[in-house]
């Protein structure tokens, strides 16, 4: 997908003094800009779509130069053919859903992305005659997505696509986004401060912090590194484990992390799920205990040890264990000393099934 290659190299300084100075290249597929709020993610989107003009730098998409400050060249937003789904949707309140969807078709006409197909894929059939004020948040997001798609964009930008939605809705929107990507091979770039959203949707991620790119690469490794980096400033890491090949076994479900078995309580909706658990719910032992009430035993080796002191909890040690994915455990400094934990130590992690949250 040569046409979807996006080269971004821009400086933009707000009057408030915040300065974005970022450079990255995306090769298509689903990519994400990740970082805390205020790191400049949305500014990048505005620059790409043309609502802001960089003070220096250039943005290139495929063979097209979208903007080049040195050459004094700038394609206005309405001719860039880049779709954007805003965080607050920005549907036109005075137009019906159908008229909202058709707004961008006036220029692009009917292309490979057809009206009926969009209505079908995004399940908008029942909403066409309604007005935006009569729709729920999730419905509005789907309409905004459909409206952007119908302009036949070369690239679809999404600002916090899952923000402000209830858990159940997030899952549906994710499903719809994945469907859109598969159905039309639409390259997407999403912006999020939410690890779950990024891990579930994107293949490639660019991590932004205070206006600059601090890391980029394949999603899982990059986000693990990002977690490591922000450890010392945050209240602590959260574990998000990807469980594959999940199937029903009696009253519980069984799946795998890498080549190790993993058990979940109750029924699980799909064959790949994510679970969240707090590092304080992960216990470490040096040698495996054969019979114990905790069923999840994950073998791995310590890949990092971070000591953090906070006013509330005193001194705690976070231990990162590579069990195929990075898993964080919280231990006390004395336990850490007594166990002789250091990088490379082989340990077994025990996790209570009840301590785990299924992420949907």
């Amino acid at each position: 997908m040569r046409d979807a290659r996006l080269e971004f190299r821009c400086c933009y300084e707000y009057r408030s003094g915040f300065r974005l100075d970022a450079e990255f290249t995306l090769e298509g597929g689903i990519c994400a800009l990740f970082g805390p709020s205020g790191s400049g993610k949305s500014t990048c989107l505005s620059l790409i779509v043309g609502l802001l003009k960089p003070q220096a730098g250039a943005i290139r998409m495929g063979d097209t130069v979208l903007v080049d400050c040195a050459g004094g060249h700038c394609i206005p937003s309405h001719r860039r053919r880049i779709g954007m789904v805003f965080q607050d949707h920005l549907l036109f309140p005075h137009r019906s859903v159908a008229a909202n969807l058709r707004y961008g078709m006036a220029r692009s006409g009917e292309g490979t992305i057809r009206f009926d197909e969009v209505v079908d894929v995004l399940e908008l059939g029942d909403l066409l005659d309604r007005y935006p004020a009569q729709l729920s948040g999730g419905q509005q997001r789907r309409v905004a997505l459909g409206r952007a798609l119908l302009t036949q964009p070369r690239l679809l930008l999404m600002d916090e696509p899952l923000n402000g939605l209830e858990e159940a809705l997030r899952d549906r929107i994710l499903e719809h986004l994945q469907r859109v990507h598969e159905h039309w091979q639409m390259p997407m770039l999403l912006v999020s401060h939410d690890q779950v959203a990024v891990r579930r949707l994107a293949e490639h991620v660019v991590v932004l912090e205070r206006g600059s790119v601090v890391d980029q690469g394949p999603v899982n490794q990059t986000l693990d590194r990002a977690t490591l980096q922000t450890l010392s400033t945050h209240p602590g890491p959260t574990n998000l484990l990807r469980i594959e090949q999940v199937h029903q076994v009696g009253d519980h479900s069984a799946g795998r992390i890498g080549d190790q078995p993993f058990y979940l309580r109750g029924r699980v909706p799909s064959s790949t799920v994510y679970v969240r658990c707090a590092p304080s719910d992960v216990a470490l032992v040096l040698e495996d205990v054969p019979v114990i009430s905790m069923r999840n035993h994950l073998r791995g080796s310590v890949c990092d040890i971070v000591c953090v002191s906070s006013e509330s909890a005193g001194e705690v040690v976070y231990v990162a264990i590579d069990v195929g994915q990075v898993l964080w455990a919280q231990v006390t400094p004395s336990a850490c000393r007594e166990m002789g934990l250091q990088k490379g130590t082989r340990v077994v992690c025990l996790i209570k099934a009840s301590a785990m949250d299924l992420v949907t």
Partner: protein
Amino acid sequence: MQGFWLDASEWQAVCLSLRVATVAVLCSLPPATLLAWWLARKDFPGKSAVETVLNLPLVLPPVVTGYLLLVLFGTQGWLGRVLDQWLGVRIVFTWRGAAVASAVIAFPLMVRAIRVALAGMDARLEQAALTLGAHPIRVFFTVTLPLARHGLIAGAILGFARSIGEFGATIMIAGSIPGQTRTMPLYIFTAIESPDGIARAQRMVIVSILIAAGALIVGEILERRARRQRAMR
């Protein structure tokens, strides 16, 4: 024309006032809308200077505005000369002069009403429309105008009412020629000065009140209908 309890000259004044006010509003509504949009959406050096000049007619005595217009549009004034020589249009001491005076006096009021409405709508809707491939002109007509419609209605009503009442600037640039430039306020003033004019003046005062109230009611109805449409959605 004669009817109700108005005589021919009184009818003339009423019709003239209505025509002057209508023409003044219709001609100044488009530029007032554009200027309001420009001021509401753009930041540029010298913006406060533009705002000051725009609001001058609001604070200057109308007679002074009228004098300046007379200088500008007179047959020796630079704009008046151009219009006279190139288009053969005379402004001063014609009904057109009265319309120009009304338009200039009402202009800042209209801009203000429309600007408030534009500031009240979410400007990012315009940005969203741009990203959907709509040309800025199309965005203006399909997103901005419909969403700021109540401001345009309010501006037009306000401008119309102000035009009907215009006196000072009108008498300077258009004079008070019976049947040609003697609008209702001028008619009332002239009638009061003449020995038997009290009754005429009173009738005209009543008509003025009716027209002003009518304009307000029409505006209210239009705005309520717009609001009801939005509430339904």
